[in-house]
């Protein structure tokens, strides 16, 4: 305690008062005051006490102000007293009444409940009595029906008996007539067994005799006897036999058929088609019976049995196909050819019919499997409308398993696997042939191989597409991408690499060294053939034709992509190939489309080659003649130039001559690109010679005139504006045309207006210095 006091004393912190309502007063005990000795401390405590007193006073005032309202509230409360007593009495009375009513209702309803129970029991009793009567009726009925061979009636009685509650039978045994019923039941069970035996026997006879009405008659009886599985299995056995006999018949026909027949090339595909159509017809015909007598969701079982027979027949047909068409042998030869280890080469044309037949076989199989999937899943769907998600998934799994793992699917996958390799070979060999037989007709821009190659590629992809197998289609698109990007682009690229030969005149100009260089480089590439030397014209033409070819290839690939896209939308709308089919196809197709850009790149490379070997060496000397024309001229010479143009007219004429050669033999797009390269070249080279010349005032004017004619000409041969490329030269002409050095300031800086200077201040000074009549110091003094 002492500790606490001393700490309080020292810190002057006070404890909050307890038990004083809402007051913020502190309790400063008298002991505490007494223990204070220092005047300062005393004063502090006193001050705080005074403060607290004021607070307490304020609170008291506030409380007193409330007195009136509280008093008036008390008065109203007093007045309410008697009323409350009245309400309490009423409430008690009400509660009593409710309890009474409740009891009454309880009483009444319990009686109703008893009545209801009695009624239910009565119904049950009647039901049982009915059942027992039915039982007796069944016993009598079965006997008479069996006697009169009315198996449907007998089966209906047995069905009724099987549907009866087993407890009813137990109950009836315990009754007074127990022993008699027992005997009857025994009879009934015997009748059931007998009927089962009879039905099985009769069904067997009917199937043996191929008596469809009888077969169907007994097929309908099986489910009445609870023999769903057995009925379906026996019935499908019968159907399978029919499928088999028909299929064997068809196969025999094939083996005996005339090989010159119109359909001979696709006879195995036709045989498969007949098989599939037969089975589809069976499903179509018998689905209603199965649905009506066996219930929904049973179609799967029937088809499962049928598919076994289908697989057996497919195996036979494919076996015969493989043998008769030498399919495996052909495949092996192709494989060896692809590995370059074949003793004999296969003529690709010979593969053509067999490839078409295989894709047709696969297309038919896909169609058939799609038919089965649609039928079974819609049957399951209706049957499973109330079933749990698990059951649905289980059914879906069964369906997938049946269709994915059946021998038909596997066999077709195998055939398609071989097909892809053979189609790849067909494509590659035929493309090689088209390249080897490449011809060019005068007047055409491109040569024959471009059209041929794209015809082949389109044909191969189209054939893969006709198999209706998305993976097969995608694989062929991948292989076509490879063929175009690696092989065919390689062919064109090699042709371009042989270069555009320089003309004889230039050879003389360039001297013997460059000629040796050309021969040397072509030797290095192993392309040094006599034809090349014989006719440079031909080599030139070949280069230009190749450029056109490259451009058309790029175009054709884009077109091919669009065509394939629209061809496939139909396929996808039928839901072929599952949910990923579209994504797979799009991805493979975009790879193919990307090859278009690779051809575009090749075109640019070729153009650059053309420009640097054919255009530049020609143009440069023409531009260089500018140096031999003096631009330091007097009035007289200027006028003479007017009449006898010294340079620009001849230059334009030369350009025109050279470009006309290209214009005739290049496609408009390529020609445009080439003229663009040419104008750039002219601008760059002309700038160089101008900077090497010297001018006076009239010379500057002359140059301005020359430049204007040149730009005017070039504008007519290009399809876009060339002003930009000549901006620097035009500005140079402006500078060379000035009266005085300082006049440049009228065009420079703040005075430039809409003009954007492409020349740096240093370059401006350099150009000004070309004017021999401008003083060095004036140029130096300029503030740019």
């Amino acid at each position, binding site marked *: 305690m002492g500790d606490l006091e001393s700490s309080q004393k020292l810190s002057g912190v006070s404890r909050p008062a307890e038990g004083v309502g809402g007051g913020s007063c502190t309790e400063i005990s008298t002991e505490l005051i007494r223990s204070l000795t220092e005047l300062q401390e005393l004063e502090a405590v006193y001050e705080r006490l005074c403060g607290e007193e004021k607070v307490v006073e304020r609170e008291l005032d506030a409380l007193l102000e409330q007195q009136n309202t509280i008093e008036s509230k008390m008065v109203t409360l007093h007045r309410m007293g008697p009323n409350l007593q009245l309400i309490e009495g009423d409430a008690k009375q009400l509660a009593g009444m409710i309890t009474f009513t409740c009891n009454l209702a309880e009483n009444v309803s319990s009686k109703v409940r008893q009545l209801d129970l009695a009624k239910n029991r009565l119904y049950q009793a009647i039901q049982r009595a009915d059942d027992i009567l039915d039982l007796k009726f069944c016993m009598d009925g079965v006997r008479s029906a069996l006697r009169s061979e009315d198996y449907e009636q007998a089966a209906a009685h047995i069905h009724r008996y099987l549907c009866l509650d087993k407890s009813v039978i137990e109950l009836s045994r315990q009754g007074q007539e127990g022993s008699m019923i027992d005997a009857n039941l025994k009879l009934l069970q015997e009748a059931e067994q007998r009927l089962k035996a009879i039905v099985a026997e009769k069904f067997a006879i009917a199937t043996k005799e191929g008596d469809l009405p009888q077969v169907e008659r007994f097929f309908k009886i099986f489910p009445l006897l609870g023999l769903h599985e057995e009925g379906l299995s026996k019935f499908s056995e019968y159907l399978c036999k029919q499928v088999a006999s028909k299929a064997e018949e068809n196969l025999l026909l094939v083996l005996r058929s005339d090989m010159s027949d119109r359909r001979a090339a696709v006879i195995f595909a036709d045989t498969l088609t007949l098989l599939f159509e037969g089975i589809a017809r069976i499903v179509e015909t018998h689905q209603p019976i199965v649905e009506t007598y066996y219930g929904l969701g049973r179609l799967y079982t029937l088809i499962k049995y049928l598919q076994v027979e289908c697989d057996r027949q497919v195996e036979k047909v494919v076996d015969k196909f493989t043998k008769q068409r030498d399919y495996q042998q052909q495949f092996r030869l192709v494989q060896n050819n692809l590995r370059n280890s074949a003793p004999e080469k296969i003529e690709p044309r010979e593969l053509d019919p067999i490839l078409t037949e295989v894709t047709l076989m696969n297309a038919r199989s896909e169609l058939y499997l799609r038919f089965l999937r649609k039928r079974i899943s819609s049957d399951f769907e209706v049957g499973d409308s109330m079933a749990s998600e698990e059951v649905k998934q289980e059914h879906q799994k069964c369906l997938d*398993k049946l269709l994915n793992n059946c021998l038909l699917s596997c066999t077709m996958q195998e055939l398609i696997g071989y097909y892809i390799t053979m189609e790849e070979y067909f494509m590659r060999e035929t493309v090689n042939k088209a390249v080897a037989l490449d011809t060019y007709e005068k007047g055409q821009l491109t040569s024959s191989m471009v059209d041929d190659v794209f015809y082949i590629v389109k044909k191969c992809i189209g054939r893969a597409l006709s198999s209706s197998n998305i993976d097969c289609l995608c694989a062929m698109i991948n292989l076509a991408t490879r063929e175009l990007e690696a092989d065919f682009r390689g062919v064109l690229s090699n042709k371009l690499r042989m270069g555009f030969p320089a003309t004889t005149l230039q050879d003389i100009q360039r001297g013997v060294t460059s000629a040796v260089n050309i021969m040397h480089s072509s030797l290095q590439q192993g392309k040094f053939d006599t034809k090349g030397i014989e006719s440079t014209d031909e080599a030139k033409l070949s280069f230009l034709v190749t450029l056109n070819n490259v451009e058309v290839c790029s175009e054709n690939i884009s077109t091919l992509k669009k065509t394939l896209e629209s061809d496939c939308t139909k396929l996808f709308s039928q839901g072929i190939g599952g949910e990923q089919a579209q994504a797979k196809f799009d991805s493979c197709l975009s790879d193919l489309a990307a090859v278009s850009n690779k051809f575009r790149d090749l075109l640019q490379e070729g153009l650059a080659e053309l420009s640097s070997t054919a255009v530049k060496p020609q143009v440069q000397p023409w531009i260089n003649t500018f140096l031999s024309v003096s631009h330091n001229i007097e009035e007289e010479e200027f006028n003479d130039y007017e009449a006898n143009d010294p340079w620009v007219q001849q230059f334009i004429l030369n350009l025109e001559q050279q470009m006309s050669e290209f214009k005739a033999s290049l496609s408009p797009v390529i020609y445009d690109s080439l003229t663009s390269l040419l104008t750039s070249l002219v601008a760059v080279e002309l700038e160089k010679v101008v900077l090497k010349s010297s001018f006076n005032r009239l010379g500057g004017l002359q140059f301005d005139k020359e430049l204007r004619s040149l730009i005017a000409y070039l504008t007519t041969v290009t399809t876009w504006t060339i002003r930009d490329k000549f901006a620097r030269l035009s500005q140079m002409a402006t500078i060379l045309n000035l009266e005085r050095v300082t006049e440049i300031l009228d065009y420079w800086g703040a005075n430039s207006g809409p003009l954007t200077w492409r020349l740096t201040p240093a370059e401006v000074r350099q150009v000004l210095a070309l004017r021999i009549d401008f003083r060095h110091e004036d140029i130096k003094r300029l503030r740019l």
Partner: protein
Amino acid sequence: MSMEDYDFLFKIVLIGNAGVGKTCLVRRFTQGLFPPGQGATIGVDFMIKTVEINGEKVKLQIWDTAGQERFRSITQSYYRSANALILTYDITCEESFRCLPEWLREIEQYASNKVITVLVGNKIDLAERREVSQQRAEEFSEAQDMYYLETSAKESDNVEKLFLDLACRLISEARQNTLVNNVSSPLPGEGKSISYLTCCNFN
């Protein structure tokens, strides 16, 4: 292309014997599922997953191929455009390991020479039935200069790591390639290359 929302796009193709768990690896990575009783893949399956690596969106196109022989000609057609191949075997199946050299021959024959190949030993959750020791596989992959990883699609062990590490390597490889391409344009054609290069001067 440029409108699509990613910085890199890579094609990854999974190959290897039938039943080694290629589909399960892909499903685990792309959907986080391990579907038991997975049926054999037919042809090729195709999945896309976009991942973020160091703030860059990387779209992975994953081609899951059928292991069965009869699909070989379909699956081979995808090798050439693949940026990476995941060669998978089953550590509890000696046979699937013994077939690896054959797969490597296929890669040699059909894939681009720039392709990255990763060797994956799957099913390490079945350690008690292991037939191929880790050391053996490591020695093999080292000899073939391949990255090696053991995974369990079932327990999700190393599956993320497999694909993300691969994506990282593909990114750095792609970066290097663009760098090399910028330094000198690799145009073929000995003596002529000079004239090809001059085109830059007047464009």
